[in-house]
């Protein structure tokens, strides 16, 4: 199970890195005749075995979102053409829509693949930042002790009880409602780090407090090691396992936080594909019943969160966490 989870994560990472080669269509390309078109089915049989091909989809009724396939003309899939792994004939109006099209006629599969980049990069960067900040604060708090420890511990506890999503909401609201993608990326990363570090810091502090009375620390201090060296080279490595566990809990939480913020329109602008902005399409209940492929980004989020949980469950017996 643990291996399956790790394999899934590696696959997702490869897809994200190779997005522009994997995606059959450009993520912002609009096929105006194929709004909300269902997924293109790939056929290999037409009276006899054939190389994989697709049929053209033609809109029958725009209002009812009904489409029919034109079975008279086979459009063969083209491999390693146009700089992508596989594609159909997008210029001739027959794109390969593996997961259908959204309300603007954009390829959902290509957008999910491209969207993984911003979503995952943001979550990874925020996880890294929160882990480093948490380890630093927890380490200083535990090693320094006294008044510094008291103040830092109180702050840690206070941030821990706050319901995170409301704080994210309030902090994000201090920016204008519409801001460019790069500003969103930086501000959300900063906000996530500010809210994520305490869970790391609390555990690191506890470990450092119990470790600092050990003989090896006294020995290092007696040898004249500076305080910074004792903390960085001797104490923090002891907390390594805890830090890694916390990071695996923060990563899915941040992926979700980004998705939530973009979903409610306070994250990335609609034009830049992320799993959250794509989910906005699914908030249209009337459309959702007819176009279930709007849930594709939800499936992607689930897949990553599930895979992370599988990996964590393999390493420790207590995978239990609740989102605040």
């Amino acid at each position, binding site marked *: 199970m643990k291996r399956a989870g790790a394999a899934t994560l590696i696959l997702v990472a490869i897809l994200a890195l190779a997005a522009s080669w994997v995606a059959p269509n450009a993520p912002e390309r609009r096929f105006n005749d194929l709004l909300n078109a269902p997924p293109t089915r790939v056929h290999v049989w037409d009276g006899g075995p054939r190389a994989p091909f697709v049929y053209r989809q033609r809109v029958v009724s725009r209002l009812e979102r009904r489409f029919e396939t034109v079975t008279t003309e086979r459009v063969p899939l083209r491999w390693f053409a146009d700089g992508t792994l596989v594609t159909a004939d997008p210029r001739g109006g027959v794109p390969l829509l593996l997961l259908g099209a959204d309300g603007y006629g954009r390829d959902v599969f290509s957008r999910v693949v491209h969207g993984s980049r911003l979503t995952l990069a943001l979550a990874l960067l925020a996880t890294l930042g929160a882990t480093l900040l948490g380890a630093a604060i927890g380490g200083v708090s535990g090693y320094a002790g006294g008044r510094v420890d008291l103040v830092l511990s109180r702050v840690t506890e206070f941030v821990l009880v706050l319901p995170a999503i409301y704080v994210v909401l309030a902090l994000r609201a201090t920016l204008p409602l519409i801001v460019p993608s790069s500003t969103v990326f930086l501000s959300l990363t900063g906000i996530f780090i500010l809210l994520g570090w305490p869970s790391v810091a609390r555990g690191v502090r506890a470990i450092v407090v119990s470790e600092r009375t050990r003989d090896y620390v006294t020995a290092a201090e007696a040898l004249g090691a500076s305080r910074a060296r004792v903390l960085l080279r001797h104490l923090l490595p002891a907390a390594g396992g805890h830090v890694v566990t916390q990071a695996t809990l923060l990563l899915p939480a941040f992926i979700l936080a980004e998705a939530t913020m973009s979903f409610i329109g306070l994250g990335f602008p609609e034009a830049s594909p992320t799993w959250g902005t794509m989910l906005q399409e699914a908030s249209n209940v009337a459309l959702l019943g007819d176009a279930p492929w709007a849930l594709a980004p939800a499936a992607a989020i689930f897949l990553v969160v599930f895979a992370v949980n599988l990996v964590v469950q393999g390493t420790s*017996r207590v995978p239990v966490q609740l989102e605040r």
Partner: protein
Amino acid sequence: MWAFLVRRVAFALVLIALASSAAFLLTRAAPGDVTDQLGPFAKPAEVAAMRARFGLDQSVLKQWLSWAWHAARFDFGESFLYSRPVRGLVRQAALNTAVLALAAFVVATAVGLTLGVISGSLGSGALPAMIRAASAVCVSLPPLLSSLILVFIAARTGWLPAGGMSSSGSGDLSWAGWLADLAWHVPLPAIALALPIAATFERLQAQAMSEVVGQPFVLAARARGVSSGDLILRHAWPVSLRPICAVLGVAVGALLSGSFVVEYVTAWPGLGRLMYEALRARDIYLVAGCAATGSALLALGTLVGDVLLAVVDPRVRDEAHS
């Protein structure tokens, strides 16, 4: 116990004051204000009148002081968005959120603990394996995803209403009819909110149960001839409850945070939705009122959780004494 309660209430008051003041000041510092809602063609005189009416012409400190002075007497000012006192709006929304959160909590506890006892006491076999798999999936289905999926199922099948808290025209229903209508709308958002928490409870309960079942006192009870059902329910289960009670406080936070998303997706007129609208419109007093109420709910929930933990585990009570 009393010293413990007093300390917790004091902490709650500090939390409420800090959270609502922070929300107030952040919204005030945000670019734009409520006068943006008047549209681009508002006359300067109208804008000035509006700013004066909501105290935006005063300095930040002065406005905050006068708001805090009134808020301490439960007067949270007037909402621009609804042209009504914040207090009434927030009370109604908090009630709606509490209904949703309580329903979800009941579902999560009932489902999570039952399945946890079953899978924890049986240990291995087909049934526990199925329960484990189901909760592994549900743990990875946070409210954002679970509510979207349930709304999709509801839209596809029509089994349940896909959103809202009441049907249109339910205003003229009798009291019983109104209650039935509410009961018709509650399940979808409540289940969406409950699923991940139920899964967490199931995992915790199963772990605790499997640990308790191996302890000597259970073996001793079995040797005395206690039946299997009694053994699990009367002897082992109460002892295994501690881990659940320990996360109750966190569960309250999860319910509140999760209910924000669920309210947004299913159009439930709760506190999260109200605060979101208020934030977007820069409705300062409404934002602060929502933050105060939300943090009060959170503090109340954690307090109840801690008291329950003290009831179940005498050791916690003794710590509170010392």
